[in-house]
């Protein structure tokens, strides 16, 4: 239904929601502090419990946001995973665009001029 192709953008639609269900479900569970502690204690066991596929496991291990999105991750749920690693949406933006955090922030400021 989304005919328009927007560069650098993945529409989180039904196909992506199906593909990413396990990954997003795991990330959703990280709203709970007890679950976050459990993830930190044994990441592999925590991922196994949610039956992540190989692509999703590799993307989580690599802390690679673009790969997590490719594996079906939705940014709102991924933000909860990123929070465990102390990363906010500006860190995620810098990583995805291959920029330093300072350069990413400067790009945002420049958008106002």
């Amino acid at each position, binding site marked *: 239904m989304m005919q328009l192709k927007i560069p650098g953008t993945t529409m989180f*639609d*039904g196909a992506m929601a199906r593909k990413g269900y396990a990954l997003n479900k795991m990330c959703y569970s990280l709203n709970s502090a007890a679950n976050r502690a459990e993830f930190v204690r044994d990441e592999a066991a925590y991922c196994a419990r949610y039956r992540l596929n190989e692509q999703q496991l590799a993307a989580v291990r690599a802390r690679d946001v673009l790969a997590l999105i490719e594996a079906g991750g939705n940014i709102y749920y991924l933000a*909860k995973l990123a929070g465990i690693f102390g990363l906010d949406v500006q860190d995620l933006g810098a990583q995805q665009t291959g920029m330093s955090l300072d350069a990413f922030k400067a790009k945002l400021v420049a958008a*106002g001029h």
Partner: protein
Amino acid sequence: MATILGAISTSHVPAIGKAIARGLQREPYWQPFFAGYPPVHAWLREARPDVAVIIYNDHGLNFFLDKLPTFAVGAASEYQNADEGWGLPTTAPFPGDPQLSWHVIESLVADEFDVTTCQEMLVDHAFTVPMQLLWPSAPPWPVRTVPVCINTVQHPLPSAARCYKLGQALGKAIESYPEDVRVVIVGTGGLSHQLDGRRAGFINKSFDEQCLEQLVDDPEALTRYSNAELVERAGTQGIELLMWIAARGAIAGHACAVHSNYHIPISNTAAGVLVLERATR
């Protein structure tokens, strides 16, 4: 009868909640943003709302992809905030108005908006941050609340045209409520921003400025965009413009802007606030 006093739309970026928690309002980064709110407070003091109907989008606190309603209306006597996973302090609970909620639900369904009703509903930063921005000295919160949640997580999202009509039906619902309550509509989210993908950091100042004008004078122009066109112009999360369009729908007819502020950037977002009143023209 109930009265709609106006509509306030505002950004709801989590970083704003963190800045409030840390008292950073006067820091150079934050000052141009927070300076946009004292005129809103003055308007609210004058308007004296009893109830805020808050049109927002959940980001994975109350709803998951297992069951994701397109439109949901809270019908609880109290709404709790909770841990969203990335460190925003939780707020005091918000009083509800279940009698008004059920009236709104009855009226919306009669108008063919088949909403999901929620007698338990956690409200996330998209609800709590605007409440903190509008009533910075709360709690106690000076208004009762009715949450109206729109899906902006998983496409297909409702169209801009549909959200505008939802707002119109919401306005009709409120104005047919027999109790003498004073109601402010609050729309939250936006303006242009994109968090995900290689296009992360996308901001579109000229489109935002166009929206701020058309929300006042020609909201129907905005309803002609498809959601894909809105994502192209405003970014994947800039689609939160849908809540502003719904809030505009609730005051119907001609409107005038009492106040607006626009500032780039707050975190990854072009942040805005707009206060609208109904105009007689």
